[in-house]
């Protein structure tokens, strides 16, 4: 599996889990403060942003393919 595919799948999974799938009206009694599902989703969004920031720093050069064998931008198919 290529790096970009791994990253794409990671991004998709993280996006999917930012949605509060497991919170339902029955399972989320209204207490005080903000809704639990809101806090969960906000927290997961922060995790998502941390991952993206890390991935940009860590994998940029590999994604750019600057050093790979087929990186020559003038090479034709």
């Amino acid at each position, binding site marked *: 599996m*290529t790096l*970009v595919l791994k*990253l*794409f799948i990671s*991004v998709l999974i993280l*996006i*999917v889990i*930012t*949605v*509060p*799938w497991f*919170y*339902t*009206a029955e*399972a*989320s009694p*209204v207490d*005080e*403060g*903000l*809704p639990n*599902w*809101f806090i969960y*989703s*906000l927290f997961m*969004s*922060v995790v*998502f*942003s941390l991952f*993206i*920031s890390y*991935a*940009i*720093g860590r*994998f*940029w*050069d590999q*994604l*750019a*393919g*600057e050093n*790979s064998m*087929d*990186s020559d*931008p*003038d*090479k*034709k*198919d």
Partner: protein
Amino acid sequence: MEKGIFILDSTGIAVVIVYLILLIIIGLAGRFARKENSLDDFYLGGRNLGIIVLLLTLYATQYSGNTLFGFSGSAYRNGFWFLLSVTFMMAVIAGYLLFAPRLYYLSRHKRYLTTSDFIQDRYNFRPLSILVSLIGIVALCNFILSNLKAIGLFVESGSANISMAQGVITFAFIVVLYETLGGMRSVAWTDVLQGLVLFVGCLLIFGVIIFKLDGLHVLTVNLREVRPEFWNPPTFDQKLSWLSSILIVGFGISLYPQAIQRIYAAKSKSVLKRSLQVMVFLPIVTTLFMLTVGWVGAAKIPDLGKEASDTITVQMLNFIITEVPHLQVLLIVFVAAVFAAIMSTVDSSLLSISSSITKDIYAPLRPHSSQAELTLFGKLISWMLMAAMTVLALITQDTIWRLIEIKLELLIQIAPAIFLGIHTKKVCAVPVFAGLIVGTAITLLYVIAIKLGSDIPVRPFGIHAGLWGLIVNLAIIGLGSFLKNESPDGEKLT
């Protein structure tokens, strides 16, 4: 309009006039800094944007009048569910992660100017690159439209005696003036000022709401009394729609032609990397803060109708200065932020459309045109386009959020051509072209059917029509490329 205190009183208007004059001066400075009369210099600022300029121009371009009005308006109507907008603004940067590194690298070697330059270089199929260009143009026209509409609504509801038409015409004129003075350099430099003002403005209004209006108490106690349904977890359909919105908007925004041009315009790889690493956190201090305005607004000013709810931001400003009059001077900074957000987005979109029409459509028809002639043609396009958009902004009836969605549902259709085109040689031109046509047609037909009053859901099964179009688009590309099997091996293009 009912009588009351308005944020755009004589002091507010004076500040706005000074601000607009500043923008024109910066635009002039961009003009004098021009190094040559070429498309590269005019549309990409000589590919020399440093970290501060690039970060702030990306920020000012990505956050627009839609953020300040559309998002808060939607938060007002939909409640905490609209938290999804924070995630999709982060997903934009995830989109960049997947294609910007390679695209930037290629653009340095191949001197791309527009998105279509990459498409033409990768697929060598003119109908495809023209179609990508046309979709970008239509999407950006929609973007300009929604932003001009936002500025008109703001001016009209924030002042006692300025009409929407006066607001739209004045701001459209100023934007097209400084944009045609210095192109990308003027636009990026004005974006520095506009980005700073936008950032400070969002911090300010959030701070005022939390500390002066006891925002946390309003959010957790008062709001529940007025809108208890906000506390209900989203239904399954809403969750699907949540996911669909993140995918459509997040990846759609990353494909904005003007954002791609900023990738090309970065001075270096590290400048671009650092800018994006910061950008991913900005939804927390921009989008989330504006959503808070909408939620607190729902408690403080309930019962606004659908269209009026798009003015909740300005209604809250008027409300705050009525409650706490001595804050008016501070809140005028937010007024400037509103203009900054809108103008920076409109100028970038305008520049991008102008470059697409000039480089992708006009230049191939007139191959012997000089760079100066092409640049002049691009400027004329900007003026004509802005005139048309001004008229449309005054007559369109859609809510701002709906206009954003339509634009992105179209734009997302070019995602496979770019994402797959960058990372694999296995997709070929004709299936990509066919997929793009069918995906776009599905999206457009659906939007038109709803416009004509058809009794079909806006989002079938909670998923945007654009995403259904994208699924068909991808299926056609997959099947077509498999059958054609032109390039069975290899990973990267060119």
